[in-house]
C-alpha cells in the first residue's frame, strides 16, 4: 500500500496539465460557471480530447479507450477539474457507449461508437416516464414489432438536453404480459424520426436542461434493438451502475471547495474574512473531511475494479455522499455571498453585469439547481434501498 505517485505518474500529470493549458479553448474559460452553455460549448472540449485520443478513459482500448491505469484516470480527472473544463456529457460516453460495446452487435458498434467518441452524435437518455421514476420498471412506452420495424408510442420525461440530441436510447415495453422487468427492451432512436416531439421543462432556477419527449407512431428499424428483445432491463441496470460510478465527482468538488474558500476569504464579517470566523471555518472543515472520506471510498472501489471486480451495490455510497457533498458546497456558497444571493442572474443580458461581486453571480441559482442531484440517477432514497437490500441483506 502506498499513497505516493510514481515518477511515471508525475510525468503523466505534467503531460495532462500541459495539454490542457495549451489546448483548452480560450472562449470556454470561466463560461461553464456563468449560465447557459450552448450546444457547441458542450462539444468543443470533447472534440479537443477526441483528437488527442483522451475522450474515453473508461472504454476498453480496442473501442477507443486510453488504456490508462486507475491512477492515471484519477490524475486525468483531477487535472481536468483543476482547469475547470466542462464535464463531458455522460449520455454517450458513460451510458450508451458501454452498453453498445458490451451488448451490441458488430454492426451497431461500427455504426454508433465512432460518433459517440467524436461528439458527432449527441445522445440523450429515455428512461424516466411521468408515472415511472423511482419505479423505473413500470415504464409504459410501448414498442410493437411490425415487420422489420418497431412502432413506438408513449412519453419520456426529465430527458436532459434532449433539445440538442441526435439520438435517444430508450427503454420501451415490448411485452406487457409478463413480469415488468421481463418485457422491456433497449432501443436506439434517431431524434429526427417523424412523430417525435420535444417539449421543454423549465426548472426552478430558470434553466432549460430537461424536456418531455413524446413518441407518436415512431417507426424505428429493428436493427436498432440492443441485444435481445425483452432483455433490456439487464442492460438498463448495467448502465445505472456505470452511471453511479462516475457520480461521486470528487475532483470537481475539491475544485468547488477551493472556490468556496476564495469567496469566504473575500467576504468579510466585521472586517474579518468569513473564512476566519469559527462557525464558517468549521463548516468548511467538516465538508472537506466528508469529501476526503468519499475520495478514499471511491479509490477503494476503483482499486477493486482494477482487479477486475465489478463495482457492486455499495457504489450507491458514491451517489449518496457525492451528491450530498455537492449540495453542501452550494449551500455554503449561497451562505457566503450574503445579500448577493438575491439577484436573479438570468434576468441580466449577456453584456450586463449583475450587481455584487463576480463570484456571487448565479450562486443562488446553482444552489437551487443542485437539489436535483439527490433526485436524479436513482434518488438517494432508492440508493439507500439498494444498500439495505443488496449489501445489508435486509
Amino acid at each position, binding site marked *: 500500500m502506498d499513497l505516493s505517485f510514481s515518477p511515471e505518474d508525475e510525468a503523466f500529470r505534467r503531460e495532462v496539465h500541459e495539454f490542457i493549458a495549451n489546448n483548452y479553448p480560450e472562449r470556454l474559460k470561466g463560461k461553464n460557471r456563468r449560465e447557459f452553455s450552448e450546444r457547441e460549448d458542450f462539444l468543443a472540449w470533447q472534440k479537443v480530447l477526441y483528437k488527442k485520443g483522451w475522450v474515453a478513459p473508461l472504454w476498453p482500448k480496442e473501442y477507443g479507450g486510453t488504456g490508462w491505469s486507475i491512477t492515471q484516470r484519477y490524475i486525468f480527472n483531477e487535472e481536468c477539474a483543476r482547469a475547470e473544463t466542462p464535464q463531458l456529457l455522460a449520455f454517450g460516453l458513460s451510458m450508451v457507449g458501454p452498453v453498445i460495446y458490451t451488448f451490441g452487435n458488430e454492426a451497431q458498434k461500427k455504426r454508433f461508437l465512432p460518433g459517440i467518441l467524436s461528439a458527432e452524435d449527441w445522445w440523450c437518455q429515455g428512461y424516466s416516464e411521468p408515472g415511472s421514476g*423511482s419505479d423505473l420498471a*413500470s415504464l409504459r412506452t410501448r414498442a410493437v414489432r411490425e415487420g422489420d420495424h418497431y412502432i413506438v408510442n408513449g412519453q419520456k*420525461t426529465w430527458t436532459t438536453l434532449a433539445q440538442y440530441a441526435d439520438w435517444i436510447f430508450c427503454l420501451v415495453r415490448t411485452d406487457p404480459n409478463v413480469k415488468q422487468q421481463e418485457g422491456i427492451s433497449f432501443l436506439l432512436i434517431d431524434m429526427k424520426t417523424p412523430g417525435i416531439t420535444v417539449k421543454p421543462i423549465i426548472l426552478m432556477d430558470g434553466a432549460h436542461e430537461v424536456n418531455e419527449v413524446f413518441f407518436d407512431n415512431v417507426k424505428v428499424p429493428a436493427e436498432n434493438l440492443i441485444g435481445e428483445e425483452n432483455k433490456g432491463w439487464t442492460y438498463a441496470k448495467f448502465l445505472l451502475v456505470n452511471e453511479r460510478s462516475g457520480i461521486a465527482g470528487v475532483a470537481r468538488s475539491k475544485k468547488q471547495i477551493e472556490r468556496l474558500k476564495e469567496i469566504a476569504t473575500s467576504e468579510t464579517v466585521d472586517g474579518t474574512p468569513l473564512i476566519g470566523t469559527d462557525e464558517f471555518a468549521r463548516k468548511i472543515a467538516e465538508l472537506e473531511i466528508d469529501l476526503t472520506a468519499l475520495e478514499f471510498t471511491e479509490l477503494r472501489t476503483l482499486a477493486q475494479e482494477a482487479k477486475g471486480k465489478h463495482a457492486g451495490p455499495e457504489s450507491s455510497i458514491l451517489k449518496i455522499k457525492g451528491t450530498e457533498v455537492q449540495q453542501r458546497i452550494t449551500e455554503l456558497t449561497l451562505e457566503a455571498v450574503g445579500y448577493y444571493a438575491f439577484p436573479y442572474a438570468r434576468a441580466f443580458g449577456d453584456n450586463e453585469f449583475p450587481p455584487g461581486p463576480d463570484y456571487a453571480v448565479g450562486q443562488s441559482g446553482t444552489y437551487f439547481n443542485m437539489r436535483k442531484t439527490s433526485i436524479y440517477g436513482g434518488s438517494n432514497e432508492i440508493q439507500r434501498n439498494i444498500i439495505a437490500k443488496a449489501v445489508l441483506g435486509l
Partner: protein
Amino acid sequence: MDFSYSEEQTLLRNSVAKFLADHYDFESYKKISRSEAGWSRSVWKQFAELGLMAAPLPEEFGGLGGGAVDTMIIMEEFGRALVVEPFASTVVVGGGFLRHGGSAAQKEKWLSKIADGSTVMAFAFAEPEGRYNFADLTTTAKRNGSGYTLNGQKAVVLNAPHADVLIVSARTAGGRRDTKGVSVFLVDRNAKGVSTRDYPTIDGQRASEISFDNVDLPAEALLGTVDEGLGLIERVTDEAIAAHTAEAAGAMKVLLDTTVEYTKTRKQFGVPIGKFQVLQHRMVDMFIQAEQTTSMALMVTLKLDEGETERKKAASAAKVQLGKGGRFVGQQAVQLHGGMGMTDELNVGHYFKRLALLDTLYGNVDHHLKRYAALSD
C-alpha cells in the same frame, strides 16, 4: 395565559385568507411577480381597502390599533400565498421606524399615508461589504446647514423599485462599525442625486442597488435621535423578523400540505409513496419544523415590547428557527416531489426559494446564533 385569537383577529385572518384565495392564487402570483412592474398596485389598493395596512398601526394616526399580533396574522397568510407586495417593508419596517422614532409631525405626515396605502416604503440598510452588521456603514450623512448631505451606496434594497420613500441608514459620526454615530433618514426616492438600478430577485421579488450622490436632506428627514439610530434599527428589524417568521411559517405549511397531498396520490411500486415509512417520518419532521416556526412567530410577537435583551433574544431565536426550519422543509418538499419539485411549473420551488432567502434577510442562522449567545452571557 391565553393564546386564543379575539373575534376581530379571527375576522382579520378570514378576510385576508379569503381575499388571497379569490385574488392571489399561485398563477396570479406568477403573473404579478413576472409583470413589468413586479407587483400589483391594484392588489395593494385592495389590501388598503380591506384595512390591512391600517390593521397594526395606532388609531390616532389612521390605524386600527391591532399591533404585532395583527401583523403576524397577515404575514402568515401572505407567506401562504407568496405575496410580493411591499407590506413588510412599508407597514412593519416603515411604520415601525415612524412609531418608534418619528416625531409627532413625522407620524402625522406618514403613518396615515401608510395606513391608507398611498405610500410605499423600502428600507435601504445593507451595503456591498457590510453583511449583517447594521452599523457597518460607509454611507455618510454630513451636516449641511440645518440639514444633511447623503453620500454612499446601498445593496439589494428589497421593494425599492415600488417605493416612494426610502428609509436609509447612514453614518453621521464615528468610524465604520462604531455602534454610536448611526442615523436613520427618510429619503424621497425621486430626490436629486438618488439613482437606482432595479432588478428581479431569484425568489420573485424586486430590489435595487442605490447610489446617493450628494443628496440634500432637510432636517426633518432625520428619524429619531441623531447618532443614536442603531438601537432604533434593531428594534424595528426585530419586529420585521417577527413578521417574516410568521410569513415563513405560512410558507412551510403550504409546502407540508402540498407534499403530504402529493405523496398520497403519487404511486410507485404499486403504492402511494406516502405509505413508505421513511417518507412518512420525513414529513413528520417537516410538520415539526412548521409547528416550531409557528410557535416562534408567536413567541417573538408577544415579546416585542419586553425589555431590550429579552426582545433581541426572542427575535434571534425566531430567526434561527426560521432559517433552519425553512431549509429543511424547503429541501425536503423538493426531494419528496422528485423531479416535479424541481420545476418552475409547480409552486414547491417558489416557496423553497422564498424560504431560502428569508434566511438571509436581516442576518442568517450563524449571525443570529452568535447574537443570541452574546446576549445570554
